């Protein structure tokens, strides 16, 4: 028998999938909602316990999916980093669902709500599987699951525009997964394995002997481009604002905060456990990612400045934040990668907070979406306003908040890489200014009383309160106790590299 | 001899794919796509993968084709109002 905690990753994935399968049995949304949120929090609790145990022991383990060991059967592998990511996925999904409950009631017809929760729990399962998987083909299958589920939670809010946004999202996603698929097919053809440790061994052998170098380059290129399309890195970002800006609140929060990150996590895992970072660096792919990351940071912010629809503004800001992650990956050092992962955590908590608060603010203002008409919404519901302000300040980079820590870590890690030092620092500074240029006016506008305010005070929303408090606590926690988290991230990355 | 046959099949696949993308009417494109699936079935059989052949025949040429045609009916493309 294995130690009990080693069953947790599989148990979490399985729990989510079974929850998804049983959802159609519910007639109405309310119970389905409660069960799904409960499952998300259970996933969070289990994964957090696992993360603590693994981080304490500096341990990494593989879990056989079936009776057959490594090169024959499927496997999943867990280390402190993936366990923490999985905990974050569970927590943020649960909190987003709570925070977006009112919007779900308004946007999705009651008989179809259980189907929405099918998608959410399958998405959570897929995200965890992407973090834990130790097999490239399993990665592909779960990428497809997350694609369909992500598109479905966009279109769940059944308006013409969200369906148009969904089809665009789907087309782009299909391009991405097609490229990823041909990448792994080529990889299988030259290595003959599908499990990451075995593939990695073969890749090292090929790299050292110089055989199949061109196909290998192609493989790394295809997989990178495929995943970058799916996580909206700069030249492939055009689909994002429509999809994330138009969906219902909890969908936007989950999509922006988690789904984009799931693909990046898989990419980092592939870089570390399959190709090794040295190979990727010597193929100059990190430098390319660095350039596009910077471009994304700047262009995303510039487009956000020009946007007046609050959710689309947040969506454009997501493009910029994804740019930060790729800036960290592009540095090509361990510290840079760790900073990128830290940014994943920070953005994964902050953006849902912003979306949830924005959803609440539009709700109290009578479903207005433009910043101009939202003036004064924060006065009507000060708590939502405070949450939005906190998230915005974190994005701008106020010390003691998560966003500041992430930027600081990125800057600190760029110090060690000389040719990339100045571009990285300049881009960070410029993008901070740009962030301030759209977040500060938005916050000021929200707090300025105006004629658009509702006359009667807002109805109480305990679920929203819980969600906003949880997410805000996460933002502050990420800003204050950075050191232990960074240690666990570093340990996790080193363990990923060791196999 | 098999090689020639295989080459012919591959050629017809390419021709089908090109024809489907340049055909005037949507229904033609769908029918050509179904033919493409059928050729693919034969190729799976030649590549010694009978499992794939059965699946492709049942799904690619069968159910997917039906779904395509039903969609064409819903978007009123069967009578050629849109695409002629």
């Amino acid at each position: 028998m294995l130690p009990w905690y080693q069953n947790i990753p599989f148990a979490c994935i399985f729990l989510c999938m079974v929850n998804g399968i049983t959802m159609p049995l519910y007639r109405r949304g309310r119970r389905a909602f409660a069960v799904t949120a409960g499952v998300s929090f259970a996933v969070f609790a289990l994964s957090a316990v696992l993360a603590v145990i693994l981080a304490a022991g500096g341990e990494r383990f593989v879990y056989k999916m079936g009776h057959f060991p490594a090169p024959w059967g499927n496997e999943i592998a867990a280390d402190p980093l993936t366990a923490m990511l999985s905990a974050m996925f569970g927590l943020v999904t649960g909190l987003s669902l709570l925070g977006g409950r009112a919007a779900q009631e308004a946007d999705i017809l009651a008989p179809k709500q259980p189907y929405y929760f099918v998608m959410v729990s399958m998405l959570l399962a897929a995200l965890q599987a992407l973090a834990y998987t130790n097999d490239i083909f399993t990665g592909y299958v779960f990428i497809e699951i997350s694609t369909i589920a992500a598109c479905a939670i966009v279109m769940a809010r059944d308006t013409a525009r969200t369906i148009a946004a969904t089809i665009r999202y789907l087309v782009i996603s299909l391009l991405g997964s097609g490229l990823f698929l041909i990448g792994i097919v080529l990889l299988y053809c030259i290595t003959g394995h599908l499990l990451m440790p075995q593939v990695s061994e073969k890749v090292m052998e090929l790299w050292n002997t110089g055989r199949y170098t061109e196909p290998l380059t192609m493989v790394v290129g295809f997989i990178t481009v495929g995943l970058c399309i799916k996580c909206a890195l700069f030249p492939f970002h055009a689909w994002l604002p429509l999809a994330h800006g138009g969906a219902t609140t909890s969908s936007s929060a989950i999509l922006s905060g988690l789904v984009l990150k799931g693909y990046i996590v898989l990419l980092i895992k592939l870089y570390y456990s399959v190709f090794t970072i040295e190979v990727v660096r010597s193929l100059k792919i990190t430098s390319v990612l660095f350039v596009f990351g910077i471009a994304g940071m700047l262009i995303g912010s510039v487009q956000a400045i020009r946007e007046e629809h609050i959710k689309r503004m947040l969506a454009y800001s997501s493009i910029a934040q994804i740019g930060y992650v790729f800036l960290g990956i592009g540095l090509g050092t361990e510290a840079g990668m760790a900073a990128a992962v830290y940014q994943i955590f920070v953005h994964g908590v902050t953006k849902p907070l912003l979306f949830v608060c924005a959803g609440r603010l539009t709700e109290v203002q009578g479903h207005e979406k433009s910043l101009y008409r939202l003036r004064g919404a924060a006065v009507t519901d000060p708590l939502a306003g405070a949450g939005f302000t906190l998230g915005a300040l974190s994005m701008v980079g106020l010390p003691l908040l998560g966003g500041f820590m992430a930027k600081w870590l990125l800057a600190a890690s760029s110090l060690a890489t000389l040719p990339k030092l100045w571009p990285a620092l300049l881009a960070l500074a410029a993008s901070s200014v740009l962030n301030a240029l759209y977040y500060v006016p938005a916050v000021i506008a929200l707090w300025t009383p105006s004629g658009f305010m509702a006359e009667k005070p807002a109805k109480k929303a305990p679920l929203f309160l819980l969600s906003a408090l949880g997410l805000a606590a996460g933002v502050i926690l990420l800003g204050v106790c950075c050191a232990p988290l960074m240690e666990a991230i570093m340990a996790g990355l080193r363990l990923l590299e060791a196999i | 001899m098999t090689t020639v046959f295989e080459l012919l099949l591959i050629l017809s696949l390419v021709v089908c794919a090109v024809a489907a993308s340049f055909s005037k009417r949507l229904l033609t494109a769908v029918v050509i796509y179904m033919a493409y699936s059928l050729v693919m079935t034969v190729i799976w059989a030649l590549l010694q993968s009978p499992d794939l052949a059965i699946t492709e025949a049942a799904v690619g040429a069968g159910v997917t084709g039906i779904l395509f045609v039903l969609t064409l009916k819903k978007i009123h493309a069967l009578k050629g109002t849109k695409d002629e």
Partner: protein
Amino acid sequence: MKELFKLAVVYRFELGAILLFGIGFMNLLLQKNLIRKIIGFNVMDSSVFLFLASQGYIEGRIAPVLTNGSMQAATYVNPIPAGLVLTGIVVSVSVSAFFLALVQRLYLKYGTVEFDEIMLLAKKEAE
């Protein structure tokens, strides 16, 4: 030149698969009509599967189903690509069905299946 031609005949399935991949990819990117786009996606996916299966094929061996009790690996072709392709076909059918359902709904809302027109109408509606 003759050598290259011979090599091309040897790699016939792979080359065909790549041509199909290109055609499918272009269709998915460039076709304005959504139905053609999804046909392009199907062509692209099946071309990748063709590529995979042709790399698993081994000359002179038979399908991976136990025949005449022979349990020698040298009797059968590689079963792994077939399994992977089976999974892939299911995925592509599911995606096609989802896509076509979306197309139906879009037609109901906008009265067209041209991607550009739909995006334009959606944008106009946003303003």
